[in-house]
């Protein structure tokens, strides 16, 4: 199981900051990120992919997204 980061309700640049901190700490594996705006969704995916991580799953629940980021 990987780490889960809850960025719901946080404004820029917190969602990206928290995601990148987790990426730095884990180096590889799986990170689940909860976001509640499309802006955060785009920013988190953009930041993670720039670090060599991939978006392997995206679930939408109401206005929220659950993003699964992985790196082998």
């Amino acid at each position, binding site marked *: 199981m990987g780490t889960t980061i809850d960025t719901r*309700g946080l404004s820029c640049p917190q969602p990206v900051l928290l995601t990148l901190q987790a990426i730095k700490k884990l180096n590889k594996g799986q990170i689940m990120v909860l976001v509640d705006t499309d802006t955060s969704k785009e920013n988190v995916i953009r930041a993670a992919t720039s670090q060599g991580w991939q978006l392997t799953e995206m679930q939408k629940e109401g206005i929220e997204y659950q993003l699964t980021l992985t790196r082998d």
Partner: protein
Amino acid sequence: MSVWKNLFATRWGIIGVGLVIGVLAALLQKWGNPGNMGICVACFERDIAGGLGLHRAAVVQYVRPEIIGFVLGAFLSAYLFKEFRPRAGSAPIVRFVLGAIAMIGALVFLGCPWRALLRLAGGDGNALFGLLGLVTGVWIGTLFFKQGYNLGRTQVTYSSVGWILPLLMVGLLLLRLIFPPLPESAQNSILFYSLKGPGAMYAPVMVSLAVGLLIGLICQRSRFCTMGAFRDLILFGQAHLFSGVLALLAAAWVTNLIVGQFHPGFANQPVAHTMEIWNFGGMVVAGLAFALAGGCPGRQLFLAGEGDGDAAVFVLGMIVGAGVAHNSKLASSPQGIGQYGIIAVILGLLACLAIGYTMRIK
């Protein structure tokens, strides 16, 4: 819809938005707006404050339709693309104060980040000091972010909360249309109108409104932010938003060259002064305040349009800050800084540092 939704989030999307803003801003000047001020979020909110009589600086009073368009364009876009998210409650009092301080700093420099770029694109070398100040202020902000600065989470709230600033803007638009400027009169029964100075220079109301709506729409889609451009570059080494800002600068410069609005130099630039330390200092304060509040003044308008009540509070803080800046002689003029401009910059900086230092999650 989904094609459009994704397109704006790409590198070319944000570059396209920057190009459109740059061209339209230069053209708005051609169509009547003040020099190197086709668009200036801080100046235009200050003009709105003046139009409502919140300050009595007679040369900067006009209810600017561009600002109204920014909010309403973002509002329409948010509904069209199902991104309207009513939310509020992340330290609103701090955001109000940051808005007021940001405005006071911007009025020492005489422009927000948008106008700093447009001033440079028009050949105003003094803008370099303002931009350097902006970058410095944002850099200080990133130090706080690295140490855990965070204003806390917003709460999901009623749709009507998110409607408040857009409705206020509809109200302003109605006032502007029902009570237009009267010939040779500085005041009608409700609004103030400058008879000379920058406040008396404006593009036709429907042109300003249309451009504002278009920019509001594309900026809501693309998340364009002049402060975020520098913040992301410094904090994450990410140039996404920055490429949009460069596109704005380049497009405004080229358009200025074509229409004959490029006049390189330092002295006698329109609505600008040459006291470089305070051009720099004013924007350090503004840049730090924008960074701590999470968005440049334009971005705050677009966020408010998509339902962010805290961004709306920041906007109201800016308008009140503009009133204070002109009433209390903090704002600069082409002759130089205001009587109390220096102390305002120092106090503003101290207040921002205190906010950044004390509001960290340990």
